[in-house]
């Protein structure tokens, strides 16, 4: 029953999407350009999308094992939060999540379209077209409501994607993949990434509509600025949470391994970051018009590419949790997006080119250009490195691999130049900055950088790259803080009290200061990346109960073992005390565990971490040998700074949302006394 209702909801949304494409195009070309003409399709799309999602969740929560997806990805004893997360843990569910988010974004965009807003109606038509693909996928190859028609070894398979026929109802479902049901972050990380991916559809849709209507200029950028930043914030947070999940779950202390799927999430982030920066250049200096179109098209294409890599399994990866016929469909859609958008762009190339008007490379726009160059070049290198094994195998038949060492080596110089550009860019004026001006504005930061590097050396850091990164980060943070204090002091000299001066300096340009906060976060993350990779200590010790071992200034003691039964898994753990180096004052008791999932025949080692002021002590069970245990003890200096710095980046993005941009609606509203009650 739920299966049929859910399928009908998908069809309603699909119909809405198809209608939206046609009515959107028609009314965007019409005289009235009336947003109420697309109200019904938009409501059908969002209503159907939300209903499909709700029906899927209801089916999972009520354990309707006649539906193959439910039987495959949830079980009676699955804890509630993972039961809920099962709604998007596998392929079909993630397509539903994508669809429902896209339909909600479409609805939100529609609410901001006013009569006479042809650009907005055109953008809605583009979002409708993207929705047609996702809901079309849901209605066919990736139908989450397909019935379980065959049951073998407890695993369901569906003979048809239509939810009709005789279903075999299993007594219990298989349950979610143990790796995915091992940590609460898995319930949060994918939706975050998806909001980011889907959010980037909005600027893409406006760009395509602007191109199709031959309406270049910066209107589409002004109107989508907030959407882009929101999407970017979610993408950033999603990637960060993914790294955190990996650190907490995977047992080797890594948060980033340059795995193809990780790269696939990084690529749209890099392109979106470049886009946010180059949009500012166009908004302020009317440059880079064509480039912004190219960047947003690339960004959107990379989100589809990312989904394709994750879902097709074409590049072997630990993350490719599902594989199916959806791969070719995604590839075809990717081709349509790339060739369609670039074709349209080529047709309009004459109207979108902007005059060369860069006065000097030493200027705010010069440093923003440097950022764009670094981001896109780095994105290309990551894309090329990720697909390189495929290309080599296709052309020569040789099997090769490209992994972490290559990407690390490329990322380090890119990151260092980027930090320099961030610091100088913050204080460079628009148009032209003389060497004198740059020196005066950045010398405080340079000194701060030198001093921070010296302090790092005095604290005992002997790794050249780490000292270098600390120096660059000190330069960035010093420059930005100095700039802020300086402007605040000037506002105070203008007759304000200190707090009022500090607040008004900040409040007068939330876009700028939000960006600078994010830049401080980037500097902190850079330091954490350097310390946790170059200064980590890794050790393996074998301990009998009561024995201790000292690792890099910490003493660990094996206290006792424990066992317990949890739903769907058997937990074998040990209690480990962490002391200071002399084994006298106790810091924490950790409980690293082995989780055995009998249904999957899988044992997952689950580490436990103590976070001190400086170091993380990361303890994982490498093996149980009779009464004694082999423990891997890893020390990661300043690991917390990675999560903290990442949060600062996200906070900076949120602050930047406060930036005031004239979107055209205010103009339209004041000109024609428009009644926007349709919203």
């Amino acid at each position, binding site marked *: 029953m739920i299966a049929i209702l859910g399928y009908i909801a998908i069809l309603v949304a699909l119909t809405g999407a198809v209608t939206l494409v046609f009515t959107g195009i028609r009314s965007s070309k019409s005289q009235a350009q009336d947003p109420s003409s697309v109200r019904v399709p938009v409501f059908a799309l969002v209503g159907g999308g939300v209903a499909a999602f709700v029906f899927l969740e209801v089916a999972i929560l009520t354990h309707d094992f006649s539906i193959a997806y439910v039987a495959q990805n949830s079980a009676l004893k699955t804890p509630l939060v993972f039961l809920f997360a099962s709604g998007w843990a596998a392929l079909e569910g993630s397509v539903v999540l994508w669809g429902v988010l896209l339909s909600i974004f479409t609805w939100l965009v529609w609410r901001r379209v006013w009569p006479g807003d042809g650009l907005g109606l055109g953008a809605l038509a583009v979002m409708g077209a993207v929705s047609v693909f996702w809901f079309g996928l849901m209605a066919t190859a990736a139908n989450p409501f397909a019935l379980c028609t065959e049951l073998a070894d407890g695993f369901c398979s569906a003979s048809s994607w239509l939810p009709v026929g005789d279903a075999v109802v299993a007594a219990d479902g298989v349950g979610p993949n143990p790796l995915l049901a091992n940590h609460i972050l898995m319930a949060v990380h994918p939706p975050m990434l998806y909001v980011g991916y889907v959010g980037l559809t909005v600027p893409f849709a406006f760009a395509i509509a602007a191109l199709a209507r031959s309406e270049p200029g910066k209107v589409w950028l002004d109107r989508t600025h907030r959407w882009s930043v929101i999407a970017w914030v979610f993408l950033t947070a999603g990637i960060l949470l993914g790294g955190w999940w990996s650190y907490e779950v995977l047992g080797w202390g890594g948060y980033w*391994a340059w795995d193809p799927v990780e790269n696939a999430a990084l690529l749209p982030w890099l392109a979106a970051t470049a886009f946010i920066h180059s949009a500012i250049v166009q908004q302020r200096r009317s440059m880079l018009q064509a480039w912004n179109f190219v960047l947003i098209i690339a960004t959107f294409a990379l989100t589809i590419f990312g989904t394709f890599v994750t879902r097709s399994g074409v590049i072997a990866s630990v993350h490719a949790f599902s594989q199916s016929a959806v791969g070719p469909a995604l590839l075809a859609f990717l081709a349509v997006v790339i060739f369609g958008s670039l074709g349209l762009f080529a047709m309009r190339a004459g109207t979108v080119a902007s005059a060369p008007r860069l006065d000097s490379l030493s200027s705010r726009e010069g440093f923003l*250009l440097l950022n764009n160059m670094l981001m896109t*070049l780095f994105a290309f290198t990551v894309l090329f490195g990720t697909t390189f094994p495929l290309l080599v195998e296709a052309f020569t038949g040789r099997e090769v691999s490209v992994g*972490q060492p290559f990407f690390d080596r490329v990322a380090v110089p890119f990151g260092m130049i980027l930090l320099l550009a961030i610091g100088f860019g913050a204080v460079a004026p628009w148009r032209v900055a003389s060497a004198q001006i740059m020196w005066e504005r950045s010398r405080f930061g340079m*000194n701060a950088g030198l001093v921070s*590097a010296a302090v790092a050396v005095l604290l005992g850091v002997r790794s*050249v790259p780490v000292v270098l990164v600390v120096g660059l980060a000190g330069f960035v943070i010093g420059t930005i803080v100095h700039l802020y204090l300086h402007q605040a002091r000037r506002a105070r000299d203008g007759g304000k009290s200190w707090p009022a001066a500090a607040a008004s300096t900040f409040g007068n340009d939330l876009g700028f200061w939000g960006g600078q906060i994010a830049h401080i976060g980037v500097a902190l993350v850079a330091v954490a990346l350097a310390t946790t990779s170059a200064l980590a200590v890794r050790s393996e010790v074998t301990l009998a109960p009561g024995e201790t071992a000292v690792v890099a200034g910490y003493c660990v003691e094996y206290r006792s073992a424990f066992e317990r039964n949890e739903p769907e898994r058997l937990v074998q753990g040990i209690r480990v005390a962490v002391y200071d180096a002399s084994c006298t004052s106790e810091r924490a008791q950790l409980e690293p565990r082995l989780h055995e999932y009998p249904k999957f025949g899988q044992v997952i080692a689950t580490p436990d971490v103590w976070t001190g002021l400086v170091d993380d002590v990361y303890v994982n069970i490498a093996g149980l040998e009779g009464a004694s245990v082999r423990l891997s003890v890893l020390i990661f200096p300043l690991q917390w700074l990675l999560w903290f710095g990442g949060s600062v980046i996200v906070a900076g993005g949120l602050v930047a949302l406060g930036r005031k941009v004239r979107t055209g609606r205010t103009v339209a509203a004041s000109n024609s006394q428009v009644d926007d009650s349709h919203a």
Partner: protein
Amino acid sequence: MPERRNEGEADQTTPGVTDQRTPLSRGPSGLPRRGKSGKRRLNFFRDDRHLSVRPAGVAVWLVVPAVALVVIVVGLWPSQSTADPQARAHALAVSLKCPICAGESIAASQTDLAEDLRRLIAAEIADGSSDEEIRTLFVASYGEQVLLDPPAGGWGIALWALPLLLGVIGAGAISRLRRKEPAAVEEGA
């Protein structure tokens, strides 16, 4: 360090500096925005007594960076002679693919095989093998695809050459963005 001067002079003595305001102080019309009080906002760093270098400050500005530099150079001078074996083993494990895993390195994988291979690396290092010898050993057993770090020769060159080439093209494109004629002093952007 530059000699003491104030910013008002700098403006006049630096031709070509046409806009030294923060992004904030310029409204969309290109005109300076006005604050709520209606007063024109002060230009960034102009008539600024706080940034100007006071005589007592000169010593600080010279001494602090000099001392910092000395500390850094002296502290880092004896460069790390021999890497610690566990760090070496980890670096090697990161650069070798786990042969039975999907895209995981030996360092990252939790499989028994990866565990054995990590021990093998540690044992080889203890025996005095060089990194290159250990890599060769792995290639002999598992083929070329075990290397996550592509060799710099042969096809591996493309991996480096293409991004470099694009970087050069990009730099060329940016330099073409530069205005041909000298900038007009006032431009209603």
